[in-house]
């Protein structure tokens, strides 16, 4: 049997979930014995060059580029996993969801202490090359269908490892309560 192919990406996340993925220490070597990695920041492959079995997504959608990447993942991966709070609920970035976008942008580019005296023309950057910011953060399951969710901020390394192993080997996972208990 050929190795399953995995792709990963970080949308509006902090890369913490990816760090947690690496936190499985030497099991990383086992993981890569089991899978082949396609598009991912870990190997810097920028574009899908094969159909993948599993796509792992960190972070929600904050801008149009996130949306395009996510849809691209859905198209190219059979199974999509939302990894971590940001992907599942919007997470920390979603704190801005109750504030109007205009106010957020003005705070970021015009009114805050570092820009106050340095942006006299009150410019809010915009260019066809920069992604357009969405009106709020969208959890990824509002944009495309997601098959599995791994909770946590970040999810514990062991939880990621157990889930991936189960998905790859097809064996049932037995996740100990402590691994998904957060309070």
């Amino acid at each position, binding site marked *: 049997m050929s190795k399953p192919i995995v792709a990963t990406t970080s949308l509006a996340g902090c890369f913490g979930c990816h760090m947690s993925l690496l936190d499985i220490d030497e099991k990383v070597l086992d993981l890569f014995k089991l899978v082949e990695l396609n598009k991912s920041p870990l190997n810097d492959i920028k574009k899908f060059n094969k159909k993948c079995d599993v796509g792992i997504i960190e972070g929600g959608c904050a801008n149009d580029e996130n949306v395009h990447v996510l849809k691209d993942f859905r198209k190219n991966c059979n199974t999509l996993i939302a990894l971590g709070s940001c992907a599942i609920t919007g997470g920390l970035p979603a704190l801005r969801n109750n504030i109007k*976008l205009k106010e957020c942008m003005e705070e970021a580019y015009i009114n805050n202490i570092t820009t106050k005296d340095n942006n006299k023309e009150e410019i*809010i950057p915009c260019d066809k090359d920069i992604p*357009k910011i969405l009106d709020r953060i969208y959890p990824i399951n509002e944009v495309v*269908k997601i098959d599995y969710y791994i909770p946590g901020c970040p999810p514990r390394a062991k939880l990621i490892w157990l889930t991936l192993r189960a998905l790859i080997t097809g064996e049932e996972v037995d996740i100990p309560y402590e691994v998904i208990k957060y309070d």
Partner: protein
Amino acid sequence: MTNSDIQEILGKYNNDRFRLMDILLDIQDKYGYIPKKFFNLIGQAVGLSSAKVEETVTFYHFFHTSPKGKYTIYLNDGIVATMKGRDNILKQFSEQTGCQINSVSKDEKFGLFSTPCIGMSDQEPAAIINKHIFTNLTVEKVNRIVRLMKKDTPIQKIIQTIYESDKVQNLIHTMVTDNIKKTGSVLLNKYKRGSAVKKSLNKNPEEILEEIKNSNLRGRGGAGFPTGTKWEFCTKSKQKPKFIVCNADEGEPGTFKDRVLLTNYPELLFDGMIIAGYTLGAEHGIIYLRYEYSYLKNFLQSKLEQYKKENLLGKKIVNSDFNFDIRIQLGAGSYVCGEETALIESMEGKRGEPRNRPPFPASCGYVNKPTTVNNVETLSCVPKIINHGSEWFKSFGTEESAGTKLLSICGDCGNSGVFEIEFGMTINEMLEMADTIETQAVVVAGPSGKIISENEFNRKICFEDLATAGAMIIIGKQRNLLEEVVPNFLDFFIDESCGSCTPCRVITTHAKNRLKKILAGKGTTKDLKDIKSWGNLMQKSNRCGLGKTALNPLLTTIKFFPELYERLIKDKEYISEFNLEKATADYEKITK
């Protein structure tokens, strides 16, 4: 308003932090609002941080931290009011006063606010203006009311003018009609005040407890817990003092039967409380009266004074060794405060957040002393049981539901009001009594209860079948159940959740969004599956009844009106509602 004004009010309550509600109510009564700048002063006086004071003030609907108008108009946004034309009344008030909803006019003359059900579902559209109730409003009445307010007419005078009455002493009946549509053998019936008290004081407490237990009286506030058993828990506690609390919060939308008892038969309630006190060895009674009913406070207070004069309250009641007093504690607008432990928290001047149990109020309730909380109607049954005996009481009703029940019938029917029925009546019989045509659904027990369809109308009203604290909202065939009724109920729970439990705070909103999605034609079978599984989660992981029942409007319509959902749901696992153009529209506008 100066520091010394506030200090005077604090002094009136001996700087007692357990009386914070009264302190805040007095400040608001006198000055119209409670300015933030005094939180510190109040806190210091009663021994709380200013943040704690703020917690309490901001929890309740009727407390305001900024001026709310010389005339503050509250309109019920509950379903029955909406069905009866509340939106038109709102529009008229808004046009005439120049206020948008939930705002105050520029000259601070008018404030116009939304509030949940005010207990007038039999005479909506209704409004509370400066604590006075205006019922059966019409556009024409609104015009006249606003005209009089513009001339600074005192509120009582406005009531008398609008309702053409000169009976000042009878103002409460001028404002609110009783609408007693069916009297019964137990409650809505003659009673000689004090008679059961005198009879009780001649027996020993154990005998009375035995009588109440034997009567199979069950709580009328919703849960139906056997009253005798509840009392017995409290008798076992040796701590003193003990408290008898009457729950007159009547917050379930569509309910108004306690209002009618309080207005017409307060003696039954007072005597019930005194007898409870004697039985449990409690010397203090407190009536927790919802703010919406504050128009009844002076009336009840005068009745209590009469009781004192007749030595039915006070020291050595009717020449016995038993002392008992009753005070009225006003709430300030919060549905969850009807939950007995939230009610206790509120009486202690705190946010109305339900407590964890155990310990139960019977051992550790108000000010951590043994406390029994009973509904108005439950306590009002007690004197009748004492006078006529438990066997007589059991001769009404069914096997597991002894006695009679007051129903508050409202909505799409020709005959809304309060009906005393025997337990065991079917919904069909009830509908006939209420003069209905073409009934689509009955909301049994209000938003937290069940929305049932025609197929269920042969079921019985009693604890063993359809339990209700009294609310019966009739929904005619002309209504859109999923567009009008269910979202209104969900909004109610979203607003009224105290926020302590995550599922109650969060899932309520998610569920509402799912319903919106379904109504937009984007619902999937997965959405229904999710809602059903959330129902289970809500039952298991919320602290109080509010969260446990908050999804009932959805769950029961899914169960009893499956065809309404089937019509809307696509047989798909997933549909995205995301629209990139819409999601970037704000950005495009900002950077244009």
